[in-house]
């Protein structure tokens, strides 16, 4: 569905070096990126700020023309076939408002129906579905400027999906939302992906989004793709540490258990960190139980946030 081959994007900026002189600086926002996304996949596109995420998405949606390389989205070349492509994709940019600020939500939908030439019956069906799944009814006739952020995002999501796009690009769709609203957005995306086979490319800083939605992660840093694989592989490869939290009957000195190290002690509670390839939770539990009286235990999986932070700070060879 999406084919990206050796794509580069560089910008020229000018820096003042004197009263009149300026120096030409070429910035490589995206450098030699190659990947492909099959139909129906939900991909998380992640990376620190300024890594080249938005630039990539802008090239995929036809906003920007790549400096080099080849892009095909749904069989079209975005930079040359922008308008044809626009009919088949949906794009939501988290910080930007696509809906008409002064108009009631429903009127924005009506306008989009005409802009995208959505057949009337198709429009009615889609609207009915989104009204139900995203619970739009309470604010369907409210001007967009009066909506809360959560309501607006739900409106924006519906707007993006009204013309039945085959691919949607979502930039930070859950940013600033509360837990309930985030969950609703995720459920909606899961549903449209499962029921309509919509291909989704998601850029986000919220790793819970990724864990919940994405079967695959693409990670970009300094304009280069540094990881392409599943979430669990990522955790295995760059971290793979788990933590066993034990509650002992009474406070004790840090336990000395082979294959694990105590990273924190708080009264009778201790945190033991271990690598999943060096020890199993069962072995460790047995070893702890042999040394102290155990009341309760829990296992904490590594947060991918930790993993990602590790990669971001150490670069490609983490």
């Amino acid at each position, binding site marked *: 569905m999406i084919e990206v081959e050796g794509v580069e994007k560089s910008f020229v900026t000018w820096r003042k070096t004197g009263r009149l002189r300026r120096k030409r600086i070429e910035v490589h926002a995206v450098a030699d990126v190659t990947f492909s996304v099959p139909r129906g996949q939900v991909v998380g596109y992640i990376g620190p700020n300024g890594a080249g995420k938005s630039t990539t998405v802008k090239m995929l949606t036809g906003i920007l023309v790549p400096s080099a390389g080849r892009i095909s989205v749904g069989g079209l070349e975005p930079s040359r076939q*922008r308008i044809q492509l626009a*009919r088949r994709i949906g*794009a939501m940019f988290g910080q930007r408002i696509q809906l008409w600020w002064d108009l009631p939500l429903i009127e924005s939908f009506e306008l989009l129906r005409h*802009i995208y030439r959505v057949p009337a019956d198709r429009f009615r069906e889609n609207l009915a579905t989104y009204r139900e799944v995203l619970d739009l009814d309470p604010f369907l006739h409210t*001007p967009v400027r009066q909506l809360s952020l959560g309501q607006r995002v739900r409106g924006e999501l519906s707007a993006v999906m009204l013309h039945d796009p085959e691919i949607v690009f979502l930039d930070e769709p859950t940013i600033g939302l509360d837990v309930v609203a985030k969950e609703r957005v995720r459920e909606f995306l899961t549903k449209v992906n499962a029921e309509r086979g919509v291909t989704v490319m998601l850029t986000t800083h919220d790793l819970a989004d990724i864990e919940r939605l994405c079967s695959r992660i693409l990670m970009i840093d300094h304009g280069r793709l540094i990881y392409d694989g599943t979430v669990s592989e990522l955790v295995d490869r760059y971290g793979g540490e788990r933590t066993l939290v034990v509650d002992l009957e009474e406070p004790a000195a840090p336990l000395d258990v082979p294959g694990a190290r105590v990273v924190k002690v708080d009264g009778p509670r201790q945190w033991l960190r271990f690598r999943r390839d060096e020890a199993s939770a069962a072995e460790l539990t047995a070893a702890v139980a042999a040394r102290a009286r155990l009341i309760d235990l829990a296992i904490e999986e590594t947060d991918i946030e930790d993993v990602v932070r590790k990669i971001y700070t150490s670069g490609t060879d983490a």
Partner: protein
Amino acid sequence: MVDTLVVYRRLIGAQVRSQLQYRASFALDLFGAFLISFLDFLAVLVIFHNVPRLAEWSVHEVAFLYAASSISFALCDLAMGHLDDFPKKIRDGNFDLLLVRPRGTLFQVIAADLALRRLGKFAQGVVVLGYALSGLHIHWDLGRVAMLVVMVPAGSVVFGSVWVTGACLAFWTTEGGEFTNAFTYGGNFLTQYPIDIYSTWARRFLAYLVPMAFVCYFPALYVLDKPDPLGLPSFLRFSSPLVAALAALVAGSVWRLAVRHYRSAGG
């Protein structure tokens, strides 16, 4: 084409409805615009209170020119005045949103608004036209009626083309609103008077570079049956539709060029 018009009507209809939600405020805006532009015409009357003729032009002749320019400009301002805010769209990156929709970008920019309160200026132009015609003894034949009907929209197209071309500056500088205003609002002001009162270089600038002279002056010479004090060829009097088409073509090409620049340079 028909489809595009339908979408335009829808987009504008929605905007107009939202403007009309606040009726009192809208009425005040409308009246304010009428009053301000009316005071503007008083300046012309003050001039003629002191001098009987301005470079061989009588007060009613200048009023005719003034009215034609005013109406042309008002129609253009109505449809495209919001291009003044266009540089902001580039600066905050919202232009990107237009590029992911299956419509032309210029169309979307123009169809974003229709400021009805600017009808106040249109109304002023019509009143002034009435005043001008009341004092002129024009021999209305088919040609002159046709010219009056054609010169107004042609003028609007020329103003609009200058506006669009000016807005394109924003793609490079992300600013440029004021610079453009010098040509649009400034052009409106200049074309309200006969161009033979201006110095040679200003005349050339008006006539050829920014084709404002074609907006009203040349067609008005024909309608009023006046000899051209500059002695320019008489076919120029009929050229305004052609010049308008040419100006629109240039504006469209500059816009395309500007958008191409934006898409390769990334704003």
